[in-house]
């Protein structure tokens, strides 16, 4: 190989290399140009898009849940409030084997089988991935023990939360109602009402009673907090906060002392009582016995308690005051009497000689008075005082069912009274038109006869009876019962009184009203059916007893209270207002299977009136006043 050849090779090699290097340089420039283009695209052209994404990454809007308004009775005693407590919660999605963790947890925190059943139920009900309460109201010691062992239980956490607390327990439970965890039906309703945003972060909602009906006032307005979070979702710091507006407080019409006295007065009886202030419609007491503990419902009721409440033959969850529809029995006699006077079918002087039976022409079976042999000479006043059935058989026949229907409807019978909580049933004020609509049958004259003594098709709720009684006490002014009298603004603490919603005054002749009211006063006097219940009262009561049949009796069969099984005994009813000359309270009492109205229901009313009017806070243990006959 010559030197020339070698040099040529070398030059060629160098030339190749330099050209290759040049190509490489161009590729490098192109590559960096591509990169720069990419960064310009991302950082200049698409900047705002990525800026938005970064902000969305960084900032999460956390709802600030408002504190629920408290519920106070008319004197400021607490019916529902919020209580701060620690709860142990679990997020099932993060927890792995919940059962095993619970097993281990129960060694450091007391977890009852009831807690576990409740959690299981919640897990089945809520398919979302939120956190669920395992145990509420942890003690300080338990909180500390959990904190030390937290690492062992992923997905479990202790949180300080506000709890709805019902310090009165069963007392007034049917009026106050309860809140419960928001379920899917609630969620749908909230969305339909366009309030989904306001319920972000809220776990509970009013389900029943005042809690349910005044949900909007109690809930408040949800605020929001812009929080900077890291990739793990942990909040780093708060950027800005729009404070939630707490729910407004409610001042209800109930007088808790009276409510307690009324509930105690029932003793072991099931039943209902509604006491109303006639001038305002304020419900002073609303009893449905037995009651239930609303605290059980707040964080989901455990299945065992639920079964107990739901399957009990006593039906503690049924609000008898609003939803119990009973034949009003003789308690409606003052109203029918007033109807007869107003319609001119009876004068005060008109008197019958009561033989104890009454026959409708063309009907073979006679209608019997509750008192065998009858009451002798009976005028309108005495028909109320001794509760003469025979008097009303003939009267009802002459009035006709449709006249009775027309007269009773303005008192509130046959329709919801419009009380400010949900669930009220309308009762039934029969009419010929109703019967045709319902049964496609014409009204028979015989149907009217039992309606005349509050039996047959006539059904009324204790609330309706109380409201109607209040109308009498009010001299005809229609009463709209209400449970909430004022709302206290959460920010200004200003108390806004809700308007009294009482209706128009029904036009009765004053002397007719006076006659009926006087007769009701005489009911409480010697010779009246409820005289024993008024003995020694420091005020003048006006009342009327009633009995509602539970089982039908064959004609001529004598009703024997002792022979009939307890559940088949008659319901005892009583309506009253007092003081008679200037009524401050009107009420209706129903004691299921209480037998006669005078023996069971009237004494309950007496104790309630004593508490309210005579200030006898402890009127002694309940003693059943046994009285032969009844009404």
């Amino acid at each position, binding site marked *: *190989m010559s030197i020339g050849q*070698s040099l040529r*090779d*070398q030059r060629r*090699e160098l030339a*190749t*290399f*330099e050209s*290759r*290097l040049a190509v*490489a*340089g161009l590729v*490098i420039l192109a*590559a*960096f140009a*591509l*990169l*720069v283009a*990419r*960064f*310009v695209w*991302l*950082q*200049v052209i*698409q*900047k705002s*898009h*990525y*800026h938005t*994404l*970064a*902000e969305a*990454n*960084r900032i999460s809007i956390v709802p600030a849940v408002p504190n629920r308004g408290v519920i106070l009775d008319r004197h400021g005693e607490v019916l529902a409030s919020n209580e701060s407590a620690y709860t142990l919660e679990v997020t099932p999605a993060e927890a792995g084997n919940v059962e095993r963790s619970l097993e281990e947890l129960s060694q450091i925190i007391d977890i009852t089988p009831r807690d576990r059943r409740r959690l299981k139920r919640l897990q089945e009900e809520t398919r979302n991935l939120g956190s669920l309460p395992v145990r509420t109201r942890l003690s300080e010691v338990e909180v500390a023990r959990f904190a030390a062992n937290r690492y062992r239980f992923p997905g479990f956490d202790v949180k300080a939360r506000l709890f709805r607390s019902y310090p009165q327990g069963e007392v007034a439970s049917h009026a106050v109602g309860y809140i419960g965890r928001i379920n899917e039906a609630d969620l749908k309703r909230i969305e339909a009402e366009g309030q989904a945003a306001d319920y972000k972060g809220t776990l509970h909602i009013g389900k029943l009673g005042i809690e349910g009906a005044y949900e909007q006032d109690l809930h408040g307005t949800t605020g929001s907090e812009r929080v*900077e*979070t*890291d*990739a*793990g979702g942990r909040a*780093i710091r708060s950027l800005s906060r729009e404070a939630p507006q707490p729910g407004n407080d409610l001042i209800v019409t109930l007088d808790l002392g009276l409510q307690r006295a009324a509930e105690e007065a029932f003793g072991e009886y099931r039943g209902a009582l509604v006491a109303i202030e006639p001038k305002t419609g304020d419900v002073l007491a609303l009893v449905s016995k037995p009651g239930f503990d609303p605290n059980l419902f707040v964080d989901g009721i455990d299945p065992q308690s639920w079964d107990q409440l739901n399957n009990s033959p006593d039906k503690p969850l049924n609000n008898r005051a609003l939803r119990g529809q009973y034949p009003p029995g003789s308690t409606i006699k003052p109203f029918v009497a007033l109807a007869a006077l107003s319609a001119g079918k009876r004068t005060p002087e008109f008197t019958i000689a009561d033989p104890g039976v009454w026959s409708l022409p063309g009907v073979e079976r006679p209608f019997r008075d509750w008192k065998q042999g009858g009451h002798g000479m009976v005028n309108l006043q005495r028909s109320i005082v001794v509760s003469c059935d025979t008097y009303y058989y003939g009267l009802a026949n002459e009035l006709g069912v449709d006249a009775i229907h027309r007269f009773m409807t303005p008192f509130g019978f046959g329709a919801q009274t419009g009380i400010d909580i949900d669930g009220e049933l309308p009762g039934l004020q029969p009419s010929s038109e109703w019967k045709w609509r319902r049964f496609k049958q014409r009204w028979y004259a015989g149907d009217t006869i039992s309606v005349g003594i509050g039996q047959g098709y006539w059904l009324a709720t204790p609330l309706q009876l109380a409201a109607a009684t209040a109308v009498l006490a009010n001299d005809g002014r229609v009463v709209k019962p209400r449970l909430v009298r004022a709302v206290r603004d959460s920010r200004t603490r200003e108390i806004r009184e809700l308007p009294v919603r009482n209706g128009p005054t029904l036009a009765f002749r004053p002397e007719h009203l006076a006659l009926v009211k006087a007769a009701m006063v005489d009911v409480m006097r010697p010779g009246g059916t409820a005289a024993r219940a008024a003995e020694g009262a420091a005020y003048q009561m006006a009342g009327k007893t009633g009995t509602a049949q539970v089982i039908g009796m064959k004609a001529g069969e004598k009703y024997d209270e002792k022979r009939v099984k307890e559940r088949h005994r008659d319901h005892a009813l009583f309506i009253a207002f007092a003081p008679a000359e200037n009524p401050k309270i009107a009420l209706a009492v129903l004691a299921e299977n209480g037998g006669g109205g005078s023996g069971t229901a009237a004494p309950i009313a007496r104790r309630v009136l004593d508490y309210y009017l005579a200030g006898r806070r402890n009127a002694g243990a309940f003693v059943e006043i046994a009285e032969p006959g009844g009404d």
Partner: protein
Amino acid sequence: MINRAFHLVARRIDAPLMVTIALAACLGLLVIYSASGGHSFDRVLGQVRNLGIALAALWVVANIPPQAIMRLAIPVYVGGLLLLIGVALFGEIRNGARRWLNLGFTTIQPSEIMKIAAPLMLAWYFHIHREALRFRHFAVAAVLLAIPVGLIVRQPDLGTAILVFASGFFVIFLAGLSWKVIGALAVGGAASLPLVWGLLHDYQRRRVLTLLDPQQDPLGAGYHIIQSTIAIGSGGILGKGWLEGTQSQLDFIPERSTDFILAVFAEEFGLVGVLLLVTLYLTIVSRGLYIAAKASTPFGRLTAGALTLTFFTYAFVNMGMVSGILPVVGVPLPLMSYGGTALLSIMMGFGILMSIWTHRHLVSS
């Protein structure tokens, strides 16, 4: 006296290269501090130590004359190959890959050695056959390269394999592999893509698919790309400011002091910062190519050129993957990312470049 000492230390150091490298490294320290939360010097000090070791290695290598380096090519290559075989047989498995070899006193990653050993070996090979390069020489070179690349792919370590392959390929390319062959290889490569696809591991396929559509798996494989593009894009032209990047400071960017450090840098320093970095890289690459062009032997030219192009590849692959135009392969951003191993091989590469530059007049062709 001081002058002489300085001369002794600095006579084999190329000032333009050194200054640019130092600037990039300082920028790296700044971002590492931010990426580690902005209140701890642990990582920064660790990286300073890494830099110290790597610079010492650079200095030592720069002081070795190119002829000596050339003589070392075979032993280093063979040694590296043996270590790779050792890895395949006895290597430690970490994160599902067998990449590390436990030597008793330390664990090493032999594939890193190949990043320098492969181009040295090929450059030596072409150097001794410089008189008459034939096609078979290129074929032999291809085999010499394929063996270590194949071993590394099997570990599996796609990022390193790509870089080793690139470093070797650059030597072959610069040595003058005919365009026809390159064209044929390109066509053949494209044609065999489906075959390669079949050979890829599941996670590698997922990375490619994720590149095409990151939203497909936003919490899994796509998370890296989505979060880093958000970081870069939201940085805008001027950036959010040092320590002020929300994506970086709130943990949204994974691996943010190592492979994804560019996302932190681009978020906090914006397009301006990115352009500065690209300028630094371009300066380094230009200087490297200049040194290659001025080298006095084929070995020097090929080595310098290939090492420079490898450095460029490092930078391009990392920037491409972080900005979402290349699949995610584990390649750090040269001179910036936290970590000692890659830094060491890069600095040794620069040492070789400086040796070639500063010894060019002493070597007669």
